[in-house]
């Protein structure tokens, strides 16, 4: 019942769409890394108002589904602000913004892991706020959180099929399109499932390796 000829004939199209999945994941991750860092630094601002606003954004975005957020961006922004984004841009921004709130917590744990003495030493050396962040705190806060960031990269990768709702032609939508032409659904969906499984298991094994190696060389730096 498994038709190998059919499998090979649809493989190029699926792999092509899989590239799109990878692009969206990486672009979304880049956006999430930057916004996440901004949120994490904002949560430590000396202004109460900034802290409260950041807290509210993080809580709200974290506690609502990505699918609805993406719908909101795709269908509401044109009416609200007159901005209409392409499907790809919507996907990248939606995914990026959603996971920025998760990554901000990861950054926070990294920043909290920097000993207080480092901050005090930077103050004692008369460093400016930005200098303290850039040359003292972040260089120590970032390396230990790399494995955790990696886990979120995998989580984001597995969430990209949601973006088919706004017509990002990633691999699941490609499979659906193929199935709607050929009426053979079993092979395309199974191939997509296997692709996701293989890539995410392999990448997560790599990050686990990295984590073990880092724990060996630095000792377990992070305590959550």
């Amino acid at each position, binding site marked *: 019942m498994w038709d190998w000829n059919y499998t090979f004939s649809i493989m190029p199209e699926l792999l092509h769409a899989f590239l799109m999945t990878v692009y969206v994941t990486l672009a979304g991750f880049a956006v999430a890394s930057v916004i996440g860092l901004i949120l994490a630094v904002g949560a430590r601002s000396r202004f109460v108002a900034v802290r409260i606003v950041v807290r509210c954004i993080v809580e709200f975005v974290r506690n*609502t589904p990505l699918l609805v957020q993406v719908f909101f961006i795709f269908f509401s922004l044109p009416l*609200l602000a007159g901005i209409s984004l392409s499907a790809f841009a919507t996907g990248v921004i939606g995914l990026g913004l959603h996971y920025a709130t998760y990554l901000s917590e990861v950054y926070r744990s990294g920043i909290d892991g920097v000993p207080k003495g480092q901050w005090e030493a930077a103050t004692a050396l008369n460093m400016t706020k930005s200098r303290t962040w850039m040359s003292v705190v972040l260089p120590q806060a970032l390396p230990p959180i790399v494995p955790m960031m990696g886990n979120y990269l995998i989580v984001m990768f*597995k969430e990209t099929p*949601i973006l088919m709702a706004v017509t990002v032609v990633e691999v699941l939508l490609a499979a659906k399109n193929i*199935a709607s032409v050929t009426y*053979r659904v079993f092979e395309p*969906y199974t191939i997509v499932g296997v692709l996701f499984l293989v890539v995410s298991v392999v990448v997560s094994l790599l990050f686990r390796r990295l984590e073990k190696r880092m724990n060996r060389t630095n000792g377990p730096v992070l305590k959550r």
Partner: protein
Amino acid sequence: MQPTWIALFPLLLEGLEITLQVAALSAVVSLAIAVAAGLCRLSKWAVVRGAATVYVEFFRGVSLLVLMFWIYFALPFVGINLPKLAAAVLAIGLNYGAYGSEIVRSSILAVPKGQWEAAIALNMSPMQRMWRIVFPQAFIRMLPPLGNLLIELIKATSLVYFITLSDLTYQAMILRNNFLTWTPQIFGLLLVIYFVLSCCVSLIVRFAERRLAAWRS
């Protein structure tokens, strides 16, 4: 047709009912799977441990939406026809059960060694030791992370929209088709509803935690 806020509610309430139904059923299925798989991963038999590990790695590696599509659209091809609700609950249950089993496993391992030893010293059977001594203590540790997972699960129920189960998100899309000019209001309201649901879950979990941990103080 000129929309009003009141006109939105009947459909959204219907959707809420389905969302809550899916969430409750898949939460129960996930919890059962999580406890079973978590305990199996601590079994003294290598075969049981291995099987549980394979299950967990498999369903954590797979993408939930792809899994749901596969169960709902691909399985009928090999003769297994599941209704929408069953497919949704099975997909979410299997996926979140795998995540939950890690919480169960680590919480059981976090129960102090002395508790296990004391139970052995009192000549308890392994069954008694687990269910009367270790698990109740581990359960309190599990609550906060399981609560977070439950919030993730509620967010994940929005994916049943893709298999056309008429949940909140699905009904909101229907409303949007009826009142196109009100798109921002409809999705804004939808976001707020999901947010309130998540807040309710965190409040309930926090309350349960306080009640269950009362003996500690």
